[in-house]
């Protein structure tokens, strides 16, 4: 298997693992970590394409993904702490009674 295909296969596997974590884990923190796994898989595919074509577009896009990930994590952690203080738990199953 060529290097580019190998890296894309790895990116697909990592994205699927992240998606699995988002769907099956009950701990809100681990769900956020699974989202990071998915973002990392996207970054890997961009870098693989950039290295394959020897162009800078994928690398520049990766930089902007890092900026978006930093914003996302800052806001997600603030919301998570707020949610835990209000509900008293990180368990996603405790949110089943949400209405409206």
């Amino acid at each position, binding site marked *: 298997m060529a*290097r580019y*295909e*190998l*890296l*894309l*296969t790895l990116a*697909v596997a*990592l*994205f*699927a*693992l992240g*998606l*699995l*974590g988002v*769907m*099956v*884990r*009950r*701990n*809100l*923190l*681990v769900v956020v*970590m*699974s989202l*990071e*796994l998915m973002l*990392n898989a996207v*970054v*890997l*595919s961009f*870098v*693989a394409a950039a*290295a*394959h*074509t*020897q*162009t*800078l577009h994928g*690398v*520049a896009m*990766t*930089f*902007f993904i*890092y*900026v978006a*990930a*930093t914003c*996302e*994590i*800052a*806001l997600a*952690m*603030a919301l998570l*702490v*707020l949610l*835990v203080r209000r509900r008293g*738990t*990180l*368990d*996603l199953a405790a949110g089943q009674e949400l209405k409206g």
Partner: protein
Amino acid sequence: MTDAFIVLFGVLALVFAGLVLWLRQPMRSALALVAHMICLAAIYACLGVHVIALFQVLIYVGAVMVFMVYTIMLLDDRDSAYAHRFSGTLVPGVLVAVAVAFALWRLLGPAVPDLPAGPGGAPFGFTAFATAFMQQYWLHFELATILLLVGVIAAWTVIREER
């Protein structure tokens, strides 16, 4: 030799990603995620994209994950979410993840025609990256700073709301 290192770090990245999902304690999951990100940085270094390898370690491991570890330390480790790992959607979740992986692999894998090659050379050095960034992507860079500012204000507003 480089390909062997890429395969090695790829396998390690997959193993650590699996551990993120498998481990019960969020602190251990976070440490597995850090190891996963370091493996990805090693892959980027093997590919010659040193700029992104450095960003991966500095921004993701150094900033994002440390922030997450601090948040875990703020929370109660007797939470009920620590006792039960998986929700009731485990089987459908696995099926959906496998289906998505298969669909993505079909889309991105052998079906995609080869990407057109660039002008050649190695544009991933710091000088070339910085020059191209300031010449071609300066507007995007400014927009990114605004996004960061909005993120900081939003996080601050959420915390103030809580008080």
